[in-house]
């Protein structure tokens, strides 16, 4: 039910995730931010079991910070992705984490990159990727319209196309999405796509 997808454009990477926290038939919360800012130029969009998702991504975030404190240099996106995959692989046959991750980052040398890491510790560097039931609709939409030199506006148009497709075709489609972007200026929130506004002010 959790939809996470992302793509790489010209000097930036964008990830979008739904914002529903679901427990069986109940929607506990519709503004849960599932895209964690790993450090200044990296994002982790995660989907999976509630405890595992938060605990594992926080674990990765703290270890990435520790590396930076110890060595005075931030990790590259590739190094962070490989570290994450290594942790998932080590835990896999003892105490596996049920988390699927899309890691987006920007490095000066490598530019923008996107890594697909699934719950059984598969690692791929990709141009576009998606997890969850939404992937059935967003992957083909992205395959059709994606080009490697897209501008931010074109990429956001594609992301909105995917969200529209998910909303219209997925039987229990999540109402709201959050979009985050990472480029040379850093990792930041781009916007929300709300179709259900909560009565109270959004307290994340």
């Amino acid at each position: 039910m959790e939809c996470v997808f992302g793509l790489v454009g010209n000097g930036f990477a964008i990830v979008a995730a739904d914002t529903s926290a679901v427990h069986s038939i109940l929607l506990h919360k519709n503004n849960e931010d599932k895209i964690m800012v790993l450090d200044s130029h990296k994002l982790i969009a995660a989907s999976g079991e509630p405890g595992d998702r938060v605990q594992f991504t926080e674990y990765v975030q703290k270890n990435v910070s520790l590396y930076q404190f110890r060595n005075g240099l931030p990790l590259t996106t590739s190094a962070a992705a490989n570290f994450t995959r290594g942790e998932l692989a080590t835990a896999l046959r003892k105490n596996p984490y049920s988390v699927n991750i899309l890691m987006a980052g920007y490095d000066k040398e490598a530019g923008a990159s996107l890594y697909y890491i699934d719950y059984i510790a598969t690692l791929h560097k990709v141009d576009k990727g998606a997890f969850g039931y939404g992937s059935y609709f967003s992957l083909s939409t992205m395959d059709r319209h994606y080009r490697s030199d897209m501008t931010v506006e074109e990429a956001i148009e594609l992301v909105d196309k995917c969200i529209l497709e998910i909303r219209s075709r997925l039987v229990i489609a999540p109402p709201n999405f959050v979009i985050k972007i990472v480029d040379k200026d850093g990792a930041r929130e781009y916007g929300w796509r709300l179709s259900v506004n909560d009565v109270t002010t959004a307290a994340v």
Partner: protein
Amino acid sequence: MKLDTSGFETSMPVIGFGSNSEMLDGVSSVPSFDLPRTTDFDGFQKKSVEMVKPAKGTTTLAFIFKEGVMVAADSRASMGGYISSQSVKKIIEINPYMLGTMAGGAADCQFWHRNLGIKCRLHELANKRRISVSGASKLLANMLYSYRGMGLSVGTMIAGWDETGPGLYYVDNEGGRLKGDRFSVGSGSPYAYGVLDSGYKFDMSIEEASELARRSIYHATFRDGASGGVASVYHVGPQGWTKLSGDDVGELHYHYYPVAPATAEHVMEEAA
């Protein structure tokens, strides 16, 4: 499936009926144990664990509003179809300014909330300041996460007032932790959400909010068989928590829907 018990049979003849019986009394019987009488030996243990494991039969709710946090719960404990108690305290007082709600295993919730209270007090002593609601709920979530997969059943909300104002977190036995303004947990929670969501406004007085909480619990107990007993309502404000009310839901029913004397359309005449 007939279990093959030939391994328990021993070929050694048991000596000792008659002479020399004192020497062999201790070892006269073949070591054995009773096997459970069941057709499905492998599955019966899982079934018995499932039977005692309570299925979060309860209704609890909490919401943040202008004057703080309102917390409410029913008081019924059920084991399958049997109502084991109508007077369970499901709102647990962790410390004078934080409350926890109980859904799931009563023992698990009581123990872990008590344990959380200890940890919060230790934090106060070590840091000379009260722990935040965020910190307390994170402590509980981490503890429950380390026991995940081992059969704990806890669906709780931590409500309190700290330096940043009112705080409300939902924590469950899978290690999930959600920050929010409105939560309801338990088998009656969908019914409670229905009343709570439609009547909620941030700008409510304490009386209006307590009435909304009480009404939501009542409606949930009306429709959900596993919820009932007494609807307790607590309020957490800047000075700590206070218990506002505890009403029997049976009496609440007639309070909300009083029996109106129906006008008789046909009156039976006495046969003269």
